[in-house]
Structures are given as C-alpha cells and as structure tokens.
C-alpha cells in the first residue's frame, strides 16, 4: 500500500519535473540565443494575454460555433438516416457498397471545394463539419440499428407493442451505444475539420489566427495559436468522454 503511494508520488513528482523543465529549457534557449524562430513561453503568454483582451474570445466563438452547428446538423441527419436505413434491410443491401465507398474518402480534404462553393465565411466550415460528422454518425448508427438483438424486439412485440413503440423503446436506445461511439470520434474530428477549413480560407477562428501568424512569420503568435488549439482539443476529447459515460451509465454500472 505504502509502496503504491510512494510510486504514485514518484510518478507525480517526475511529471511535475517534466512539466516545469520543458518551458524552462525553452525559455532559457531563447534567452541564450535571442532567436525569434524559437520564441519563449513568456512571450507566448504575453501574446495570449494581449489576444485575450482583444478579440480572442470572438475567434474562439467562431470556431466553436462552426463545430457546434455542424455537429448538431450532422448528428441529427446521421442518426435519422442511420436508424431508418438500419431497419430497411433491402435498401441497405443495395446502398451498402456505395455508402462504404463514400465513407472511405477523407472528407476533410474537400475543404477547398466548400470554400469555392460557399465563400470565405463560416458556412464552408459548417458544411464540412456537418458532412464529416454526418458520415461518422450515420455509419455508426446504421451498424447499431442493424445489430439490435431480435429477441428484444420480439419480446416487446409479443407484449403488444406497435412498430413505432418497438422503434422508440428498443431500436433507438439500443443504437445509442453505437451512436456514442461515433460521437467520441466525431467531436475531435469536428475540431480538425473546422480548423482546417479556417486555415484554408476564412475571416475568423483559431485556424485563421494560426494561418495569419504563419504568413507573417510571427512565431510567437504561431505558438500561441497552437496552445489554444491544444486546449480546445483537450476540451473536445474530454467532453466526448464525459458524454459517453453519461449516456452509457448502464454499461458502466455493469462493470
């Protein structure tokens, strides 16, 4: 027991050492060489503070809006289509290879296409996120709806449930496991999609900041933008994990 505690303490200690020494070494290197390429944690922190009081919130909001809107639309359509098609085996059989083919395409690379079609605002990003999320969620929901245990359905039919009741009480909840799986992947993907779109052509958002910094060879701003993106990334992954444990309480209870 004490051994475990010592080890945990030891691990934390090492983590603390690493967490402190990385910025320390970085800062030291900058002070020694004075190179603008390297920049320094102190400079990055100052830049972040400057941004925070001058428009950072708007940029974060832009990116967040794109993600949220695209997610909402993509999820809703994906779940709907997935559930419906999952219970229409004939149509599903016909469309399956087409769907699988489309699913294998890295949809994020279509970003320039959407910018051409929809201009330089938030719309291309929303469409991109929406499509990426749609495919992910659709595919997962579809697989889930197909895979629902027939015995559960039969049991409820015997009790007198109508088709729509079976759908609402068995098929939809059963598919949630799969939908959640899709969401876990979709959330981080949405961030990547939104950022990519912004980097290619937009007037706002963190990707825009990143790109702008790169074009002006402003390393400090570049690193600052990367820090923000990393934090956003952590946020999206953590939210996805949280969502999963909430939706799947009954699974985790079983342990």
């Amino acid at each position, binding site marked *: 027991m004490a051994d475990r505690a010592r080890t945990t303490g030891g691990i934390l200690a090492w983590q603390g050492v690493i967490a402190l020494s990385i910025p320390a070494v970085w800062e030291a290197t900058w002070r020694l060489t004075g190179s603008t390429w390297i920049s320094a944690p102190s400079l990055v922190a100052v830049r972040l503070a400057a941004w925070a009081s001058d428009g950072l919130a708007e940029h974060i909001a832009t990116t967040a809006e794109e993600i949220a809107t695209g997610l909402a639309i993509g999820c809703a359509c994906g779940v709907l289509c997935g559930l419906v098609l999952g219970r229409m085996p004939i149509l599903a059989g016909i469309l399956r290879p087409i769907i699988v083919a489309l699913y294998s395409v890295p949809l994020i690379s279509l970003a320039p296409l959407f910018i051409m079609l929809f201009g330089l605002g938030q719309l291309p990003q929303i469409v991109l996120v929406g499509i990426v999320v749609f495919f992910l969620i659709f595919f997962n929901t579809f697989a889930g709806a197909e895979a629902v245990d027939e015995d559960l359905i*039969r049991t409820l039919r*015997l*009790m*007198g*449930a109508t088709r729509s009741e079976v759908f609402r*009480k068995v098929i939809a909840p059963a598919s949630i496991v799969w939908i959640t799986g899709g969401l876990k992947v979709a959330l981080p993907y949405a961030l990547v999609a939104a950022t990519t779109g912004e980097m290619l052509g937009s007037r706002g958002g963190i990707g825009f900041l990143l790109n702008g910094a790169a074009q002006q060879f402003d390393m400090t701003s570049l690193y600052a933008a990367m820090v923000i993106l990393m934090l956003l990334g952590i946020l999206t992954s953590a939210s996805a994990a949280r969502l999963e444990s909430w939706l799947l309480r009954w699974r985790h209870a*079983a*342990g």
Partner: protein
Amino acid sequence: MPPDKIQLIGASRDFEARGRRVQALQPIDLSIQPAEFVALVGPSGCGKSTILNMVAGLLGPTSGTVAYDGLPVTGLNQRVGYMTQKDTLLPWRDVEANIRIALELQCRPTSRADAAAKVREMIELVGLKGFEHHYPGELSGGMRKRAALARTLIYEPETLLMDEPFAALDAQLRLVMLDQLQFLTRSRQMTVLFVTHDLGEAITLADRVVVMSARPGRIRAIRKVPIERPLDVFTARFSSVFAKLHEELWDELKDEVTKGTDL
C-alpha cells in the same frame, strides 16, 4: 363445452441445418383447456421450446395447425406472455423500468400511479426489493430471471408460456417462485404451458404432465396429476401420490433422456 385455449393438431416442425432438412418435432396432437396448467417435460432438443414458439406465433408449423381460441395462429400472438430461457431484459433500463415496460404500451393504457403501484407489487412478489434501480448488467442470472418473470406477469396475460424459467435459481428460491406462480396463475385463471426438465417441478404445479421423447419429438405420455390444488409447494414432494406419479413418469422419461445422451 368451452373451446380449447390452445390446440395443436398434427403440428410438426422441420428445420434447416447445414443444408439438410431435420425434423425437430413429429406431428403432435395436444389440447389445452382454459385455466389449465400443463407441463412439458423431456430431454434437451425434444422440441419443447419449438412448441412454445409455435403457440407464440414466432414460428409456423411445417404441417398441421396450431390454434389459439379456435383460430389458427398467424403472426405474433399477443395474448400470451412468453418467458423464454434467455432473459430479454432491456439493458439500458433499470429493473423498475424494465418491469414497467408492458404497461407503457398504448395497447393497455395505464396511469402512472397505477403502473408504479403494480411495479412495486411485482418487485416485492419476486423478491427484488432494494434492486429497483439496478441495471440488468449488475444483477445475477437468477435475479434477472425474476425480473423477467415480474415483467411478464405484470400485465396479466391470459396465457403464460414459460421455458425453463426457474432453471437458474437455487432450490430454495425455486420453491418460493413456484409458490408465487401457483398463486398468481390460479387467482387470475391463467392458462399455462410450462416447459421444464425437472419432473418434480412439473408434478408440483401442473394439472397435466406431458412427457416428450427425444428428437424428433413426439408425445410419449400424458398423465393427469391427481393432487388437490392448491398445494403446499414446500411439502408436496413428500406425499405418496406425488412419489408414485413421479416414479411412473420417470420411467417414461429416463429412456428418452439416455437416448438423447447417446448421440
């Protein structure tokens, strides 16, 4: 004379297994009266579950007819409550919500308060008090079976089909459940078709016991159980009438059981 509740006339069933046609059930003739409790006993694979499935409308007979209330069964028979060997509890609902589900359906509208009261009653009946908010994944096999029983009984179907419902329970609990089942089915005049491999269980509860042969299944013997009902489940097996019937039926059964294991 009231019409038979359940009637099998020359009903047989074939299956396809690995490209070959296998006869699971030879033509069976069986009539079950309303409010009668009939037990089906037989070795594994004799087709007992198939008979239940046909009465429930999950399968059609390959030849012959299966009738319910005088009409042939076509499609799912929603007048029966079916408790299968595999408990099909919805894993995302807790025990309470699972038991309640039959009362949520529009075919039997129940007020929330009524439903809640019935669920409470059922939970006590099957001895799951304290576990209302547990999920099926957290329960033992026996507890899940009890929850499934509660779920089936709560809406009081006029007929009950039960496929080895108490096999996974320990001996004490089994007797308790048999007692409850007897009480419930008699007070509500339910017709019951009960499949079990335990001859003692069959004799304890049934008005008639049907012994089936090994695959392909046919009826080998039917005996009326000459014991006064209701009986004390806990002491029933000590009566001489019980023992005599048990011996008789066991004679029929044991040939079939060994036949099954030879394969």
